[in-house]
């Protein structure tokens, strides 16, 4: 049900853009106003969220240590998984962010008669996640050629590589990243349906971005290869360069598919800061990963540490137990009062 709702929501977005963009005069809304608004909300929202996170202090040093810590000189430290120096933390974070290292550890547990529990390495999620994120990145970078005039040489080169141009004939060339992102999204969606644990925990918020990104990729592909009516790259580029130079003009009729694509991207940008997609920013700030395991060597400061919390005092303790302590021969700070002779 949750995916049905998300699917319908994305379908509604498509319809809004399709019908809306056909109303005369509305092209400016879909081609200029909404994209501007989306970028504004994305940037503002993203920064707002990061600032909100940063406002809360990190009161304690809580790295998750995933290897041997630095101790005696004959015990080999695992510098990557239990870093003490900043450079080691940076290395750990780099692999976390760029290679999804923790996900690489993933195992699948199974219960068998006995009972017996087995664990085996399971890297499909890691692979699909890499495929998805990197193809997305390549596609975003590739799109820069629509916003930049002239197009820098390295972008041409990336385009060339992505299209595997040396292997293809005819035009337009098919991009590897297009296929990869579709495959990645389909895997992540399929996994949400098939893996019973994940299906049970999935929310509408988990399906929605998958559908949305799938729709964005599909409309992009449709526009490039199939629905070519009124899709003239020169006109589109004029609009997009106009957007980034703050002189947007729409001088030509552009096909609805373009407006749908742009509207969906705008929706993604607006949705981004208010959703789990903020993991993109959060991964940099996770205290269990970005802290050095040096809390015994270097004092970590907690800004709200309350100095008024004191231990139950030794004096109070001795007052309560002094007699027993003296009897047992345990040293005391204050001797017992001299006993009054009875009689």
């Amino acid at each position: 049900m949750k995916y049905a709702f998300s699917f319908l929501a994305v379908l509604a977005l498509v319809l809004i853009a399709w019908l809306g963009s056909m109303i005369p005069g509305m092209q400016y809304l879909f081609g200029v106003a909404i994209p501007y608004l989306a970028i504004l909300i994305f940037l503002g929202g993203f920064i707002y969220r990061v600032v909100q996170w940063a406002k809360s202090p990190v009161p304690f040093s809580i790295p998750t240590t995933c290897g041997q810590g630095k101790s005696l000189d004959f015990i080999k430290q695992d510098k990557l998984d239990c870093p003490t120096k900043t450079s080691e933390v940076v290395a750990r974070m780099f692999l976390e962010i760029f290679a999804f290292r923790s996900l690489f550890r993933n195992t699948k547990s199974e219960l068998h008669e006995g009972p017996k529990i087995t664990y085996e390495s399971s890297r499909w999620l890691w692979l699909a996640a890499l495929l998805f994120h990197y193809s997305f990145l390549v596609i975003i970078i590739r799109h820069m050629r629509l916003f930049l005039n002239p197009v820098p040489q390295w972008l041409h080169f990336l385009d060339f590589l992505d299209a595997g141009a040396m292997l293809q004939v005819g035009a337009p060339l098919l991009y590897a990243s297009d296929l990869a992102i579709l495959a990645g999204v389909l895997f992540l969606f399929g996994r949400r349906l098939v893996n019973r644990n994940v299906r049970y925990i999935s929310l509408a918020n988990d399906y929605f971005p998958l559908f949305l990104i799938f729709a964005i990729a599909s409309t992009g592909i449709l526009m490039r290869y199939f629905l070519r009516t009124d899709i003239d790259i020169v006109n589109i580029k004029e609009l997009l360069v106009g957007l980034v130079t703050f002189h947007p003009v729409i001088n030509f009729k552009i096909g609805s598919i373009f407006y749908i694509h742009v509207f969906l991207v705008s929706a993604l940008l607006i949705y981004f800061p208010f959703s789990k997609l903020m993991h993109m920013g959060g991964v940099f700030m996770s205290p269990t990963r970005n802290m050095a395991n040096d809390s015994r060597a270097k004092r970590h400061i907690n800004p709200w540490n309350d100095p008024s919390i004191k231990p139950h005092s030794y004096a109070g303790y001795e007052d309560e137990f002094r007699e027993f302590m003296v009897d047992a021969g345990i040293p005391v700070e204050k001797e017992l009062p001299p006993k009054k002779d009875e009689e």
Partner: protein
Amino acid sequence: MALAKLEQLSKSVVQGPSLATGAVPTKDWMDTPVIFKEGNFAYPAKKEKVEYLDSQEGLSFPNARIWSPDEDDWKLPEDWQETILKGLKERLDKFRSLKIFMDCCVRCGACADKCHFFLGTGDPKNMPVLRAELLRSVYRNDFTLAGKLFGKMAGGREMTVGVLKEWFMYSYQCTECRRCSVFCPYGIDTAEVTMMIRELLHTVGIGINWILEPASNSNRTGNHMGLQPHTFKDNVDFLAEDVENLTGVKINHSFNRKGAEVLFITPSADVFAEPGLYTAMGYLALFEQIGLDYTWSTYASEGGNFGLFTNNELMKKLNAKMYAEAKRLGVKYIIGGECGHMWRVVHQYMDTMNGPADFLEVPRSPITGTVFDNARSTKMIHISEFTADLIRHGKIKLDPSRNKNVRATYHDSCNPARAMGLLDEPRYILDHVVPEWFEMPENTIREQTFCCGSGTGLNTDEIMELRMRAGLPRANAVKHVIDKHDVNMLSCVCAIDRATLSSLMGYWNPGCDVCGVSELVGNALVMDNEKRAMGYDAEGNESELPDGFRTMV
């Protein structure tokens, strides 16, 4: 509730209808209320214990009362909902970890089958992600735009009594072991989430006795067992006598002695109950042999910190005794005994909460001269670090054949493994004190180690079945090395483990004992002027007692 028979539970774990065995619940988790019945909850804290803690300076444990989770009315304060939401807001502002962990989860499910509670119970709400969602759903509803706009559609839900009850159920089916955080691509640590939920629950008077009673004992008597100074001393004296009876060497130990070089603090369970007693004998023998100038303290007679299982204020208050006592006695530094969560507090919290310990010196082994630079600020070192260094420098003579009856494996305790990085020191020691020992499978040791299933104050008898279920992954890995290598001893460096793994082995793997690494050190230790007590071996020849300290109690 009587504990299920082994065969029954073995079947139930594998075949019982649960998410882990493939039976997907038909109802959404938000629509599945918790049901408390005898056996699935730890008993609530006694009224007088809560009152005592609440009366202590700097602490707040309100709403002391007599209540029970299996009754409908939890006797919550009138404004409980407001208190919880205000408490959540306050904690979001105090802990960046909480904010990030509330916002970043993508529900990829990588953590789901990493949790020993999920593997043992199959309860969907024991998947770390769902445990966090119990709190996250409320966070979304009240603190995020999406939740305010779309409510349930955006995964939000209102804070109700039902939700509160759910929090209680599942924050006490988590041992804050951090195994899930190893696998999470964003390092989301359920321990942080559980800690926050437990803190919030305490603000409206929901807590369990097995945590709050030991905590109040620790505050008042110095240790969680509630041993008063003379009793604590008596217990250690008995152990010292036992060591003397075995080795023929008189043990010179002291209590609350000013001017000692080292203050030694270990979990009080080590001087109170088997098999921890043998570990304590190991410490006594080792320190005697090397002539360490050290003292025990009856005031700071607890290494463990039950405050960690309640809220950060109580954790700080209990922990503060260590430095206070070190300062009063004028020692140079502190050595800490084998304990899991104690070392989480010492390693990750102590200096921040109660430092700087500028009245102490950087720990330096008086025997080897090694300076423990890794503890240069906190000035407290782990007994395994200290012992490994002694062995490395050849300063103690060890005869592993004295442990020849022991076929050991080694259990990494959650906290030393995942909140400290103490993995190889105990292994280095084991290499030198037993003839042979065996590792459990790689997905169950080191940073992937499985919890005993009863940590964070859950080793109470009324939830024994839950504990046996949660401990199954650990027990199962031990069984693997029992079958393969005839292992008969599960060694560890944790006092809670020594208690809980004993029950766990007794249930799943009878015949496998549990010991502290320092017990094996003490047994293998060749002491100057020793005169070992003799017995007879299987052939009837006179020989050293094969079970070492274990023969003595």
